[in-house]
């Protein structure tokens, strides 16, 4: 029994560490997500059986790959899909007749597969789910739990996406230079969405797989497969720097803790050091982009000894740069917040009107405005602005936080 359990553990570890690479290789051979997943599953079941009896083979990954390919051949033959799959079948039989593949000779197809899963023609959130399933090796059940939907609904979403990839002719390849920038943006966007999904869900971390960790792991894979890409470095840095501060973001009761009240001694120094070093490396390539700039801002926050001793002037400049790049009024809002710690709240308050219209339904806009008003000694107006922010708050934790801030507005008068 003990041995069977340890074989099970070995297989689990193997899947965790190498499953993404094996699955990506199968998918690119078979041009069929479902068939690849089913065949790998068959091979894993077979491994459980054989390895429990004979012990681990010398090259477990190569063993799994070879077995999965044979299982795929069986499945294609059984399903009588010769006509639609004849080319893939011939290629598989040829691969199978080659002498046993060395593990490092299994070509890593993950990069191409990441681009397939994150193709801009697919729905963004579905891209995230498909990437977690195909590259990170999460099960459909785990992904469903992460997105708080039923496993059936998630399975259907994945089926639809795979169907579109096959039917619409989305290529299994790394895009060429003419499309590189745009396609990389889509990949980075999907990774960041994964991270933010995990960040928003951190209060029930016990129930949901850690999407933040998965996003960081995926970004590391992407960077290892295609190094020297400054925006990938920027995104990895940004996530590391955010994640370093996650232990102090919420208090014991799950209420948001403002940056100025967070215990900086509990921030993860190793992650901050890695993130800050990555930002520097990226910026020295002189190809700036939005992720690098956001990471630079996060590094300034993370490395500041205190809230008061933060490089607010530099942060304001970086937000101005971001706004010039993307014209997102949220960047302008953040610039005004940073500026308020350099030049006082009144100046920022006056400039806030310029972005009032596009941010009218954006909770943080009203919270920021309330803060500027309170710090300018206009408590009654501040309370009204907090009421608007509370009305727009999406979660209980946010409402609780804003009510507390509202209660403190008069103290600053």
């Amino acid at each position, binding site marked *: 029994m003990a041995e069977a359990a340890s074989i099970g553990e070995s297989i689990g570890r193997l899947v965790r560490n190498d499953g993404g690479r094996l699955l990506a290789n199968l998918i690119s051979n078979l041009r069929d997500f479902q068939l690849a997943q089913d065949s790998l599953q068959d091979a894993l079941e077979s491994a459980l059986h054989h390895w429990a009896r004979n012990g681990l083979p010398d090259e477990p990954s190569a063993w799994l790959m070879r077995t999965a390919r044979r299982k795929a051949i069986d499945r294609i033959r059984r399903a009588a899909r010769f006509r639609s799959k004849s080319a893939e079948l011939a290629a598989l039989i040829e691969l199978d007749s080659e002498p046993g593949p060395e593990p490092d000779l299994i070509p890593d197809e993950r990069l191409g597969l990441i681009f397939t899963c994150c*193709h801009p023609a697919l729905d963004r959130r579905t891209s995230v789910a498909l990437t977690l399933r195909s590259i990170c090796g999460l099960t459909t059940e785990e992904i469903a739990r992460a997105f708080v939907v039923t496993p059936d609904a998630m399975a259907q979403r994945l089926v639809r996406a795979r169907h579109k990839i096959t039917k619409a*002719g989305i290529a299994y390849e790394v895009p060429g230079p003419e499309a590189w920038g745009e396609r990389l943006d889509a990949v980075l966007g999907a990774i960041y969405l994964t991270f933010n999904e995990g960040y928003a869900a951190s209060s029930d971390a016990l129930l949901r797989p850690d999407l933040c960790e998965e996003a960081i792991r995926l970004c590391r894979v992407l960077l290892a497969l295609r190094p020297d890409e400054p925006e990938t470095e920027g995104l990895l840095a940004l996530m590391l720097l955010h994640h370093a501060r996650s232990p102090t973001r919420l208090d014991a009761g799950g209420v948001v803790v403002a940056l100025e009240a967070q215990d900086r001694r509990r921030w993860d120094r190793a992650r901050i050091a890695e993130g800050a070093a990555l930002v520097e490396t990226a910026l020295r390539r002189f190809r700036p982009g939005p992720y690098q700039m956001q990471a630079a801002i996060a590094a300034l926050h993370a490395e500041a000894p205190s809230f008061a001793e933060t490089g607010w002037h530099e942060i304001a400049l970086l937000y101005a740069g971001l706004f010039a790049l993307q014209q997102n009024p949220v960047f302008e809002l953040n610039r005004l917040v940073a500026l308020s710690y350099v030049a006082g709240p009144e100046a920022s308050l006056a400039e806030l009107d310029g972005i009032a219209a596009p941010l009218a339904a954006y909770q943080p806009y009203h919270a920021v405005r309330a803060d500027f008003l309170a710090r300018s000694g206009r408590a009654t107006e501040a309370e009204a602005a907090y009421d608007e922010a509370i009305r727009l708050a999406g979660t209980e934790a946010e409402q609780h936080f804003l009510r507390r801030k509202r209660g403190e507005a008069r103290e600053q008068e």
Partner: protein
Amino acid sequence: MKYIALIYTAANSAPAYGSAEFGPYMASYNTASERFATDRVLVSAEALEESSTATTLRVRSGKVETMDGPFAESKEQLGGFYIFECPTLDEAIRYAAMIPGASVGAVEVRPIVDFSKLPA
């Protein structure tokens, strides 16, 4: 693979016949079509008369029912199409983006079913 690029534009979004911009707009269609032909991706293409000339029909209980106008009551109407032969969706999208109608309306790219590749 064959892809159809369906061009949807709103009634007054493209330059009108007789206006100063009409000539250059049509010329841009010619340029695009020539490019598609040179690159050997063009299968066929047609422009449609305006949607007010459309008739929609249904056969119900063996009886033909006709209606004046297009099937969908949306602001943007089908105005024409291209059929491309391309190896991947990315290429089809790259060519579809060269259709002048994409700059004033929207282009829907859909793969065309290849019945010879269906499973037995």
